[in-house]
């Protein structure tokens, strides 16, 4: 009976290691206006939206960093996070996919460490969006790949 009890503990703990990696919130650059001068919209992993050059954030939609969560990992399991390289990700104008804006400079609230004692992790990801001179109006969408490496 003692052996069976031990197996039961391992079994339950192990089954709960079925890891889930979830994107809980999109990376949103929010609403902004272009101008004749190119610029950028910056969403940091933590903190407020920034800008440079001729891109003008509008308060109607402030944007937000992307959120990801990991659960079901091992207690204190080491991890590292891999983000997209520059030149890989762009957003496309809905209805006119040839019109794009590049997304570079991905950064995350943590790049490596250990999962919590319950095998969980939550982190955020930001990036920099390049807004062209007189960038066409409309909604832009895209996606990017984030990899968590559990060691």
């Amino acid at each position, binding site marked *: 009976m003692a052996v069976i009890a031990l197996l039961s503990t391992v079994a339950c703990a192990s089954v709960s290691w079925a890891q889930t990696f979830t994107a809980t919130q999109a990376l949103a650059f929010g609403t902004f206006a272009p*101008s004749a001068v190119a610029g950028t919209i910056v969403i940091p992993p933590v903190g407020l939206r920034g800008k440079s050059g001729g891109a003008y954030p509008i308060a109607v939609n402030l944007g937000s960093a992307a959120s990801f969560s990991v659960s079901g990992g091992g207690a204190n399991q080491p991890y590292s996070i891999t983000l997209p390289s520059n030149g890989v990700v762009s957003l496309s104008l809905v209805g006119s996919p040839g019109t794009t804006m590049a997304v570079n400079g991905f950064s995350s609230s943590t790049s490596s460490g250990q999962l919590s004692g319950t095998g969980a992790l939550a982190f955020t990801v930001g990036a920099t969006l390049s807004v062209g001179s007189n960038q066409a109006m409309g909604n832009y969408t895209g996606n990017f790949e984030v990899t968590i490496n559990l060691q």
Partner: protein
Amino acid sequence: MKSERFSTFKRGALHAALASTAVLGGLGLVGNAHAISGDATATVVQAIDITQNRALNFGKFVASNGGTVTLTNVATTVVGGTSVRVSPSTAASGQFTVTGDGAATYTLTADASTTITDGNTTMNVTAITPSVTTGGVLSGTSGSQGSQVVYVGATLTQGAANAAGTYSGTYSITVAYN
């Protein structure tokens, strides 16, 4: 008693099955990578712009040793000051339309002063005062064009050196989203 034994057996069998799954799963945990695709979004709205509909116009007044003409920054301009004005007056506040994303707020800045000239002498235009400075709000809702009409008032000072004639000049006005 019978049913209790049966139950214990079932639980034991289940645990054994889970344990074997755990071993396979546990091996898979070593050095594995999980990729996920996150969405990214952005909304580009129209740039803010400002267009002059009506020039700031101090109208007609008589040459004299000195005087002022004042214009209020409202649609139906109120003309004041000490200069002797000539009717019918063409005096009017400056009028502009700001266009941009509906409901957006913006800030308007204007030169505080400028000069107008007939090519020989100048008159000072001071207290250039737009009806909107900070906290301008465009009509409508975000995603469609909004607008707001803005008026500009100012004060003109004439002097003894200013002969009869037509005087003109420019001033700069700038809008930016907040």
